[in-house]
Every structure is written in structure tokens, then in C-alpha cells.
């Protein structure tokens, strides 16, 4: 037996200066890093969207060449999905999961640090491809071969950056699963966990299941390009359509990875401002699990037009429609929670309500796209663009903003400016609809996606959409101002912050101490 080392007395507090942020293993610090990184990427991806909308303001080529336009659409998608939305959810998970469970920190704090610090390198590498010979990737975020194999020098760097993003996501997901299962406070049974934690547990499981599929798919693209394999090359006996199957086997669960934590956030906020417990907690958990399960069975609805057997089209059509059932249960439960509640409409609640209303619009247009014969008309048109932006912008991003306003007073100890918050909501909601709603009509009229020029009959709706886009983009600067000014100061927040808020995070001081739960949490 060895002799136990004697310990010096020290407090394990935060380091000072930059080293605090580089070497931190504290879940709150890492959550903050993720959220700030996500905000930065939101503006980088948003700037690319502004380039796209500026070019589409008029028919003809105005500002950029077609190659650069397609680079912008590809980079905008990659940055918004992997750089803005996913890191924002991981940031929220880092900040909230331990304090919602009554745990002192994440289960694997060092891995938590690595999983964040991979991201700046991954996105620096991805953005650096814009300056390489042949330009950045322009084949769309779906990376379909053989088109994507025509990418210039950037190709291996794009693949490597996707690997790094995937590695970061997997490390984050492993940490979330291990934390939730192993580190719940005594009395915090699975069915007592807040919905946000449940949705993240299921999201992390989806990430673990599908990330190797993406990693394998992009590696096979790399070997096809540089090592003479023919996984997806018809000339060598491979099958390019199989890439689409593999990609969407990852891609459709990825869509739910981007939306399930949003369901969790909204399920925390609505009961607080309706001053009622969440209606149908168990059914919410089972609905989330059902959506995750179904996400593995519906991938081919993204590729109805590649030519598959009728039985296959029918299967994927009906399986996709089936997702409306658990999603409908969720919407019903949110509305029932509000029914006869003592509602107030602070900014987080406004964004949550905006989410419920506009995500449902995105859900319904998804149902339209699920109908195989109709999809033949809508496929690769602006109708699809409108659909997934209603799901991801007014869905995922609205939920993130709702969450940011909801927990910002807890994180910073300061209240944000409610008047500015409401301005942010109403301007965003007006302009996001001006931006995306006309795109439904453009798609129905036949305007294809991923083109820098278009027929003259599409001009009016494109002008309206671009104006909405510029205004929506400018409005987000207001969000950045509100966040920064709240971090810098403001009216002090109470520990409870919101009158109707329930959960362990509200039992901690605002802001919470560097080490949470030095006293045992009381689980109701």
C-alpha cells in the first residue's frame, strides 16, 4: 500500500485571464464559450446569407459569380448547422444539464474542454478554404458525388474539418449521456428529469448512432478522390446514389438533433409563463423517443426523385407522415399547458410562442413534402428552402433565443432590457416571415434552389424575400447588443428570476457560484 499524499489547501477557483478560458474544465465556463462561439458563427453564417440574398435581389448576376454563390450556399449551411445551432445547444447543455440534475459538473470535464476547443480550429480550417485554389466547397452541404469531387484544393480540408466537427459532437454527446445517467442527484429519477435534459439525452443518443455514418461517408469520398477507390464512382462499379442513402441516413436524424433540444427548451419555458405544470410530461418523453426512433426510418424522403421502387416510396411516405403523430402530441401538450394558465408574455415566452406557431407551419410544409407524388414537383425548389428555414430558423434558432433570454439573468446575474427584447422578437418575427414565406410561392411556381440567377417572373417575391432577409439580419445585431449589455450590467436578477420558474437551476444564486450544489439539492 502506498501512502496517501498530503494535500495543500487551495480553492480550485477560476484561473485568471486567458488561461481561465483555454484550460477551463468548469461546465459553466465551457457552456459560455460554446454559446459565444455559436453567436459568432451565427453572424458569419448570416453574413453569407446576406451575400446570397443580395445576389438574388434581382435576376441576372450582380455581385458574385455562380461558383462563389454556390460556395456561399454550401458554407452558409455548414456553418449554421455545425457552427451555430449545434454548438448553441451544446452550450445550453453544458450550462444547464449539471445544474438541472443537481450534479457538480459534467462527468468528463477535460473531454468537455477538448470538445469545445476543437471547434475554433475546425471552423478556421473550413473558412480558410475560401482562399484556396479552386475556392471553397460549392457542391452543397450534402456533399453529393460526383459534383463535390470537383472541388479544388479545398476538398481534403473540408473533409478534415467535418471530421473535427464530428469528433467534437461525439465527445459532447458521450459526455452528456454519461453525465445524465451517472450524475443525477439522489432522488432525481429519470422520470423526474426536466424535459430539456430528456431531449438532450435522446439527442446525444442520436448523435452517437449516426455520427460514424457521416464520418465513414466523407472518408469514402476522400478515398474515392485520392486513393483510387470507387465507392461512389459509377465508372469504377460504385453507386453515387448510395452516397445519398448513406448521407441521409445520417442527415435525417441530424435534423432531429437540431430540433429535439429546442423542444426541451420550449417545454421548460411555456410552463413558467403559463404558471402551470407541463401538460403530459410522460407523453412528451415518449413522443421525443418516438420521433428519434422514426428518424432512422424516413431518410429516403429526401431523395424520392432518384428513382426507387413504388413500395419504397410508399414506405418512406407513410413513415414520414407518422412523425406528425408524436410531433402533434407535443404541440397539443404545449397548447394544453397554456390553456387557462395565468399567462404573461415576457420575451422568452414570446419566442417560445413564436416557435410553437411557426415551427408548426414548417411541420405542415414538411407533411406536404412527405407526399411522394407531390414531392416530385417540389423537390429542389424554394419550397424546400422555405420549409427547412421555418423548421430551423423559427424552430431551432427561435428556441435558442427563447432559452438565451430565459436563462441569461441566471447566467449573468443581470436582467436584460425587456423592452429591447420585445422589439427584437417582433422585428424578427415580422421580417423572418417576410424573408421565408414568399419562398413557398417561389417554390410552388418552380424556382429551383442553389441558383444565382432566375427567370424574371420570380423577381417580385425575391425582392420581398431579400428585403426581409436584410431586415432580419440587422435585427439580430440588436440581439447581440442586448446580450453584451446584459453581461456588462443591468438590474440585478433574483435567484428565482421568473415567478413561475421551477427546477434546481432556480434554487442557485444568480449568477450561480463557480462550483454548484455545495449543499444537497432538494428534489421535489
Amino acid at each position, binding site marked *: *500500500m*502506498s*501512502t*496517501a*499524499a*498530503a*494535500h*495543500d*489547501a487551495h*480553492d*480550485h*477557483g477560476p484561473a485568471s485571464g486567458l488561461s481561465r478560458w483555454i484550460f477551463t474544465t468548469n461546465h459553466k465556463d465551457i457552456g459560455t464559450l460554446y454559446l459565444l462561439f455559436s453567436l459568432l458563427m451565427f453572424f458569419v453564417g448570416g453574413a453569407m446569407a446576406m451575400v446570397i440574398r443580395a445576389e438574388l435581389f434581382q435576376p441576372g448576376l450582380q455581385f458574385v459569380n455562380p461558383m462563389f454563390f454556390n460556395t456561399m450556399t454550401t458554407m452558409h449551411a455548414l456553418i449554421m448547422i455545425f457552427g451555430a445551432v449545434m454548438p448553441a445547444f451544446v452550450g445550453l447543455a453544458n450550462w444547464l444539464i449539471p445544474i438541472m440534475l443537481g450534479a*457538480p459538473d459534467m*462527468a*468528463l470535464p477535460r*473531454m468537455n474542454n477538448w470538445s469545445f476547443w476543437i471547434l475554433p480550429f475546425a471552423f478556421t480550417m473550413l473558412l480558410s478554404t475560401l482562399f484556396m485554389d479552386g475556392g471553397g466547397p460549392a457542391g452543397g452541404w450534402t456533399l453529393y458525388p460526383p459534383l463535390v469531387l470537383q472541388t479544388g484544393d479545398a476538398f481534403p480540408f473540408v473533409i478534415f474539418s467535418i471530421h473535427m466537427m464530428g469528433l467534437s459532437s*461525439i*465527445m459532447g454527446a*458521450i*459526455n452528456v*449521456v*454519461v453525465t445524465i*445517467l*451517472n*450524475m*443525477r*442527484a*439522489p432522488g*432525481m429519477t429519470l422520470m423526474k428529469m426536466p424535459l430539456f435534459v430528456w431531449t438532450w439525452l435522446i439527442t446525444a*443518443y442520436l448523435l*452517437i*448512432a*449516426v*455520427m*460514424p*455514418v457521416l*464520418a*465513414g*461517408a466523407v*472518408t*469514402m469520398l476522400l*478515398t474515392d478522390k485520392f486513393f483510387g477507390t470507387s*465507392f461512389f464512382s459509377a465508372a469504377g462499379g460504385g453507386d453515387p446514389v*448510395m452516397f445519398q442513402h*448513406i448521407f441521409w*441516413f445520417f442527415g435525417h436524424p441530424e435534423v432531429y438533433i437540431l430540433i429535439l433540444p429546442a423542444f426541451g427548451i420550449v417545454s421548460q419555458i411555456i410552463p413558467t409563463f403559463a404558471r402551470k405544470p407541463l401538460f403530459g410530461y410522460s407523453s412528451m418523453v415518449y413522443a421525443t423517443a418516438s420521433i428519434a426512433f422514426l428518424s432512422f426510418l424516413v431518410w429516403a424522403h429526401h431523395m424520392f426523385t432518384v428513382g426507387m421502387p413504388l413500395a419504397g416510396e410508399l414506405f418512406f411516405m407513410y413513415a414520414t407522415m407518422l412523425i406528425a403523430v408524436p410531433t402533434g402530441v407535443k404541440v397539443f401538450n404545449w397548447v394544453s399547458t397554456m390553456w387557462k394558465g395565468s399567462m404573461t408574455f415576457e420575451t422568452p415566452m414570446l419566442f417560445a410562442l413564436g416557435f410553437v406557431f411557426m415551427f408548426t407551419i414548417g411541420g405542415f410544409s414538411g407533411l406536404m413534402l412527405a407526399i411522394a407524388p407531390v414531392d416530385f414537383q417540389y423537390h429542389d425548389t424554394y419550397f424546400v428552402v422555405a420549409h427547412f428555414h421555418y423548421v430551423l430558423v423559427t424552430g431551432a434558432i427561435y428556441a435558442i433565443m427563447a432559452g438565451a433570454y430565459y436563462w441569461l439573468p441566471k447566467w449573468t446575474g443581470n436582467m436584460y432590457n425587456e423592452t429591447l427584447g420585445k422589439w427584437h422578437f417582433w422585428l424578427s418575427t415580422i421580417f423572418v416571415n417576410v424573408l421565408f414565406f414568399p419562398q413557398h410561392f417561389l417554390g410552388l411556381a418552380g424556382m429551383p434552389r442553389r441558383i444565382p440567377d432566375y427567370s424574371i417572373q420570380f423577381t417580385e417575391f425575391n425582392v420581398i424575400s431579400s428585403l426581409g432577409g436584410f431586415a432580419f439580419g440587422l435585427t439580430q445585431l440588436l440581439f447581440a447588443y442586448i446580450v453584451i449589455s446584459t453581461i456588462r450590467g443591468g438590474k440585478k436578477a433574483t435567484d428565482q428570476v421568473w415567478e413561475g420558474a421551477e427546477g434546481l437551476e432556480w434554487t442557485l*444564486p444568480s449568477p450561480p*457560484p*463557480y*462550483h454548484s*450544489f*455545495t*449543499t*444537497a439539492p432538494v428534489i421535489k
Partner: protein
Amino acid sequence: MVAAECDAQTADCCVVIRPNCSLSWQRTVAVYCGICVVSLTIALGFALLGFWLILPFAGLELIALAAAFYHCAVRTNSREVISIQGGTVAVMRGLHQPKESTQIQRAWASVELAEPRQRGYPARLLICSHGRKIEVGHCLNDTERRQLAVDLRRWIRLPSAPVQAA
């Protein structure tokens, strides 16, 4: 969590300190196997279709997940045992058997609760003797740690039982 057993006659005490663990080892194995079944089914399915490069990534990921679960299980199943017997206080740490052990004389042992320099930070529980400080109860929350400090002072101060002649 603290479990203590004291003998009123001999004044001996045995205190077992263990971290909170919300998932048993058996359930950890079950969860891990469930995840493996799904991930490997997907990866093997694609491998059978000729797209075998998904399989090594799935394997690497499952190894990382296993390492994470194992690391967490080792940490949450570790124990700290403070044995107060006769004239000695022994502090032992380990997983299934003691890996570290320190002994000090009961007569010279004192219990210190080092208050944090900043509000909101945990206090540190130290058993001290002859300039040596052994931290115990690192995995406890502050309420449990403070209660343990009070109890340890009481147990260590108790007079030793008279040594019986052989």
C-alpha cells in the same frame, strides 16, 4: 454519501465515504450494450453493402463511449474509509480494495474544516497530525462535509477502550 458504524463499547468507528452514483454497474453495462447493438447493426449493415469504412468509426466511437462509462463507474464506485480503531486513525482509499492508506495517531489527530476564500466555494475537510494534512470527503457536498467534520471530531476525541490483557 457517508455511512458510519461505531461501537459504543470500544469507541471504534468505521466511516465509509462514497460519491453519488445514479446508475449501477449492471445498468451501465445494459445501456452500453443497447447502444452497441444499434450502432453496430447500422455499421455492419453498411459494411455488408460494401461501405465498410463506417465500421471503424463506429468501433472507435464505441471504444470511447466504453472508456467514458468505465472512467465514470470507477470514480463513482471508489470508496474512502476512515477507520478509527484503538489509538490509530487510518484513511484508506480504493476501488474494491485499499490502494492508498495513511495512518496517524489518534491522540494527535485533529479535524479541520478549511473555509473557502470565496463565497460559494466548497470547504475542505482535513484530518491533521504533525503538520500532515489528509483531505477526506472530497466527493461530498458542503452540508455532508460539515456534518462529517462535527462527527469526526466527536469520534476521534472519544477515549480509547482499555487494552485487555492477553
